[in-house]
C-alpha cells in the first residue's frame, strides 16, 4: 500500500539528509508503528507519505514514494487526499472550520462527495468515535482528548485507504488513549485501513502493531520487522519489553497479557523480596547515583538542602473550590504536601489537574476554601514574591521562554529571580550539559526545552515545583534524564507536584498519587497502594507482577541483583 524506494530527504540548507536509505513496503491493512528517539526524522517519513514532504515543506526527496500506486512526486497532497488521511501532532492547527460537524464534513466537501453520502458518513463517524454529544459544539470549546478524536474523525470521513498519525495519544489520558487505539484497531481489522503511526508512548501502542519500523538514529537506514524482533534491539522500548529483556524471555512479550504468561517463575523468585525494603520508599535512592550516597532523603524532613528555607509544608489547600465560567472546576479539594515529597496528580482530561496547578500559582481566585503556598495566598501575592515560593513549568515549556538565545534567557531569569548572575546558567549546565549559549530556544529539542524551562523556574529556588504534563513529546532517554533530575531535586528538599497522564512516570517518580475526577479528589495515598488497585493507572510492571507490589523495572533489576 505504501512503498518507499531508496528514499532520502534533505531539507533546504542542511548538510546531511534528514532521513536516508528508506526502502520498505507497508502492506495493505497493517497497523504499522514508527519508533525511534526524538529527532530521527519520524515526522519526515510520515509527511513523505501524504506528500507534504517535499511539496509543502520544501527540500529534496530522492527515490520514490508511492501510495496506493500514486507517486507522490507527481501527486500533490491535495490529490492524495482521498487515499491518505493525515493528523498532525497538534490537533488544534488541523481544524479549518469552527464546529465539530462541519469539521467532519470538510474533507468530504473538498472531494466533492454527494450530500447524502456525506450525511451518512458523518453520522457513522460520530458514532464510531463517540462524538455524537459534541456534534454542535464549537471546536474551540473542546478538551484535548475530544479535539484529538475530532481530528481523527475528520480524516476518517473520506474513507482513506491509509491513515497517517503523528503521536495521536500523547496528549490523552490512559482511558481516552485506549479509546482512540480501539478505534484504530477497528479500522484496521474491519475496514482494512492501513495505519502508519509514530508514537513515543510505546507502552500504549506496541501490542497493537503488526509491523514496527525503527529509525535507530538520525541518518541511518530504518529496520522493519515483527514488533518482538525489533523491540529486542530498539533503543526505545516500553517497560514490559524492558522487563522481558531483563528476565531473558524469548520471544519478547509486547503486552501485559503475554508477559503475565511468562512471568510465573519471576513472580516466584520475587515473592520473598519486598520492594519496599530494598528500594521503594526512597525514590531518591534508586536514581542512578543521584541520591545514592546518603540513602536519599529523610522522610518529611525539612531543611534538607543548603540555603533552602522550608519552614512548614510548602502547600496547604483546604476545602478549595474554583469556578471557571459556569463550571465548578474544583470543589472541596484538601491537599498538603511536605517538603521533599513528590506527588503525582492524575485523572482524565478535564478533571481539573491543570486548574489545580494554576490555582497554586495564583491564576485563579478560589471561590471557596483557602490556598496557602509557603504561607501566602497566591492570587493576592505579586508574581515577584510568589516566584520564591512556587514555580510552574507549563504544558508548553516554550511559553516561558522569550529570549532569542539560551544565554539571554538565563540572564533574564537571574534578573527576574534576584539571583546572583550565573545561577541559571549553572542550572542549565547541570540539566543540559551540552547546550551552547548561542542556541535559540526554539531550536532545542522538546526535552532540552523542558530542561531549560525547568532551569529558569528553579533559578528562584522555589520550595514547591509544579510540572504540568512534563513528558509529552519526550522519548524514553529524555524521560529518564528528567526523572533523574527531579529525583535529585526532591532529595534536596523541593516538593514536586506533577500533573501527568504518564503512569510509568508516576510509578517511577512519585511517593504519593492523588487522583482527581470531576474536580474532586477521589484517591490519595502512597503510589504503590493507589496505582496498583486501578486498572487504568497501574504501570505495566505492576500489572505483570500483580499481586506483588512491584512498580518499575529498575526496582526489579535491583532486587534480582540482590537475590541471584
Amino acid at each position: 500500500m505504501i512503498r518507499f524506494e531508496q528514499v532520502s530527504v534533505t531539507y533546504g540548507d542542511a548538510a546531511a539528509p534528514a532521513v536516508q536509505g528508506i526502502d520498505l513496503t507497508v502492506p495493505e491493512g497493517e497497523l504499522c508503528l514508527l519508533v525511534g528517539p526524538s529527532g530521527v526524522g519520524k515526522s519526515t517519513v510520515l509527511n513523505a507519505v501524504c506528500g507534504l514532504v517535499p511539496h509543502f515543506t520544501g527540500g529534496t526527496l530522492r527515490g520514490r514514494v508511492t501510495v496506493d500506486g500514486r507517486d507522490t512526486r507527481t501527486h500533490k497532497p491535495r490529490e492524495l487526499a482521498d487515499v491518505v488521511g493525515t493528523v498532525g501532532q497538534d490537533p488544534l492547527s488541523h481544524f479549518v472550520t469552527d464546529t465539530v460537524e462541519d469539521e467532519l464534513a470538510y474533507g468530504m466537501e473538498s472531494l466533492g462527495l454527494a450530500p447524502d453520502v456525506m450525511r451518512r458518513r458523518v453520522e457513522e463517524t460520530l458514532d464510531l468515535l463517540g462524538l455524537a454529544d459534541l456534534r454542535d459544539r464549537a471546536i474551540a470549546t473542546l478538551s484535548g482528548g475530544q479535539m484529538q478524536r475530532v481530528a481523527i474523525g475528520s480524516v476518517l470521513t473520506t474513507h482513506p485507504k491509509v491513515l497517517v498519525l503523528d503521536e495521536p495519544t500523547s496528549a490523552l489520558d490512559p482511558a481516552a488513549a485506549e479509546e482512540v487505539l480501539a478505534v484504530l484497531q477497528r479500522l484496521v481489522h474491519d475496514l482494512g485501513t492501513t495505519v502508519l503511526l509514530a508514537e513515543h508512548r510505546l507502552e500504549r501502542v506496541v501490542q497493537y502493531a503488526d509491523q514496527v519500523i525503527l529509525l535507530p538514529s538520525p541518518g541511518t537506514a530504518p529496520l522493519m520487522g515483527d514488533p518482538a524482533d525489533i523491540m529486542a534491539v530498539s533503543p526505545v522500548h516500553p517497560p514490559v519489553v524492558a522487563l522481558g529483556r531483563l528476565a531473558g524471555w524469548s520471544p519478547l512479550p509486547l503486552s501485559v497479557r503475554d508477559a503475565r504468561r511468562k512471568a510465573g517463575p519471576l513472580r516466584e523468585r520475587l515473592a520473598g523480596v519486598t520492594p519496599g525494603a530494598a528500594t521503594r520508599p526512597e525514590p531518591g535512592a534508586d536514581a542512578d547515583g543521584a541520591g545514592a550516597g546518603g540513602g536519599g532523603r529523610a522522610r518529611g524532613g525539612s531543611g534538607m538542602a543548603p540555603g533552602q528555607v522550608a519552614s512548614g509544608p510548602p502547600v496547604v489547600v483546604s476545602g478549595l473550590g474554583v469556578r471557571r465560567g459556569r463550571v465548578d472546576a474544583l470543589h472541596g479539594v484538601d491537599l498538603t504536601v511536605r517538603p521533599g515529597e513528590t506527588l503525582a496528580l492524575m485523572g482524565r482530561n478535564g478533571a481539573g489537574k491543570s486548574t489545580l496547578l494554576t490555582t497554586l500559582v495564583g491564576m485563579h481566585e478560589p471561590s471557596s476554601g483557602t490556598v496557602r503556598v509557603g504561607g501566602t495566598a497566591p492570587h493576592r501575592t505579586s508574581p515577584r514574591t510568589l516566584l520564591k515560593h512556587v514555580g510552574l513549568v507549563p504544558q508548553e515549556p516554550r511559553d516561558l521562554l522569550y529570549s532569542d538565545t539560551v544565554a539571554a534567557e538565563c540572564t533574564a531569569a537571574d534578573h527576574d529571580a534576584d539571583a546572583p548572575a550565573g545561577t541559571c546558567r549553572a542550572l542549565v549546565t547541570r540539566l543540559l550539559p551540552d547546550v551552547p549559549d548561542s542556541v535559540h530556544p526554539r531550536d532545542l529539542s522538546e526535552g532540552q526545552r523542558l530542561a531549560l524551562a525547568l532551569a529558569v523556574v528553579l533559578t528562584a529556588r522555589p520550595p514547591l515545583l509544579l510540572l504540568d504534563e512534563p513528558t509529552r513529546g519526550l522519548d524514553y532517554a529524555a524521560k529518564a534524564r528528567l526523572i533523574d533530575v527531579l529525583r535529585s531535586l526532591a532529595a534536596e528538599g523541593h516538593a514536586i507536584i506533577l500533573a501527568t497522564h504518564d503512569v510509568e512516570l508516576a510509578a517511577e517518580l512519585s511517593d504519593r498519587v492523588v487522583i482527581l475526577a470531576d474536580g474532586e479528589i477521589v484517591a490519595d495515598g502512597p503510589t504503590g497502594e493507589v496505582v496498583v488497585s486501578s486498572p487504568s493507572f497501574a504501570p505495566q510492571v505492576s500489572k505483570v507482577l500483580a499481586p506483588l507490589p512491584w512498580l518499575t523495572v529498575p526496582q526489579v533489576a535491583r532486587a534480582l541483583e540482590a537475590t541471584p
Partner: protein
Amino acid sequence: MSAPQATRSNALHAGAWWLWALGLAAAASRTTNPLLLGLLVAVAGYVVAARRTDAPWARSYGAFVRLGLLVIAIRLVFAFVLGSPVPGTHTLLTLPEVPLPDWAKGVRIGGRVTAEGMLFALYDGLKLATLLICVGAANALANPARLLKSLPGALYEAGVAVVVAMTFAPNLVADVQRLRAARRLRGRPDRGFKALLQVGLPVLEGALERSVALAASMDARGYGRTAQVPPAVRHTTSALTLGGLLGVCAGTYGLLSDAGGGYGLPLLLAGLAAALGGLWLGGRRSVRTRYRPERWGLRACLVAASGIAVAALMIWANAYAPAALHPSAVPLTAPDLPLWPAASVLLGLLPAFVAPVPGVTGNAGGLQRRAEGPRGEGVGPVAGARPSSRPSSRPFKKEPTQ
C-alpha cells in the same frame, strides 16, 4: 406556531439574520430621532438576548455595543474640540481658540461650544452607533462562517480565507492570555501595557507557525482540488467575467454622467449578468459539494421580512412625517416619539418569537478553557472526554469514492 428548539436541520439561514439586521440598520440610517434610535437598539438587543447561542462568535455583540459607545464618545469629543458647523445660540462654554495659519482656513480648534452643536453631534453619533449595533446583532445571531458557506462556488476560496482569519483572531487572543499568564510564572507582572508588548513577538511567532501548520493540513485534506474543465469553458469564463466587469464600469459611468443617460442602465445590467454568468461557470472548476446547507424556510422568510418591513416603513415615514424623524437641533427642541414609526420599529421583534430557540450546549467558559493551554486540557464536561457509549455496532461501510 411556537418556535421549536434549534437543531442543525431547522437552523435559520444566516442570510435571513443578516437581512433582518441590515433592515434595522437601513431604518436607523433614515432617522436621527434619539428615541427611535434607542428603540431600534432595544429591539436588536432583545432579539439577541432571546435567540443567541453561547457559541464564541455570539459574544461579539458586547464588543459591538462598546464600539458604538466609543463612536459616540469620539464624535462628541471632536464636536467639542473642533467646533461644529451647526450655528447655535446657546453657548455652553468657550474654549481658548488656537490661532492657525492662513492656509488652514476653515479649520478651527477650540472656540465656542454650543448646545446645538453638541446635540447635533450626539444624534449623528447615535445613528452611527445604532448601525454598528445592528451589524453586531447579526454577527451574534448568525455564525459568520455559515453565511460565507452560502457564497457561490467560484468565491469559495475567498470565503475560506475569511473564515480562517476569523478563527485566527480568537486564537491570537487566547495566545496572548496564555503568554501573559506565563509571564506571571517568570515573576514578571502579568498586567499592563508593557506585559502585552513583550508577549507580542512570541504570539506572532506562534501565530505564524500555526498558520503554516493549518495550510499543510488543509492541503492534505484536499483543499484546492480542481476539476478538469474543457479549455473552451475556461476561456468563456474569463471572457464573461472580464467583459461583465467592463460592462459594469461603463454602465456605472453612463448612469453617473449626464451624457449617457440612455445606455447606462442597460449596459450596467448586461455587465452584471455577464459577470454573474462568469462566476457561475467558474464554479464548475470547483469540485466541492456542500454539507447540510441551511434551507430558506418559512421562518427565515418571516425573519427577513420583518427586517425589510422595518426599513420600508421607516422610509415611508420619511415621506409623511419627516419632522418627527429628524428633530431639529437648531433651534433646540425636545424630540418626541412619533407613534406610527415607533410601532413599525417594533415589527423587528418578530424574530424573537419565530426563530428557533437555541438549546443549551454547555459551551460556557469555552474561551477560558482554550486559553489555559494549547492542548485545551481543561474543565470539559467529562461525558465528552469519555463517552459512556461504546462505538455502536452499526456497520461502517465503505462506499465507492466518487
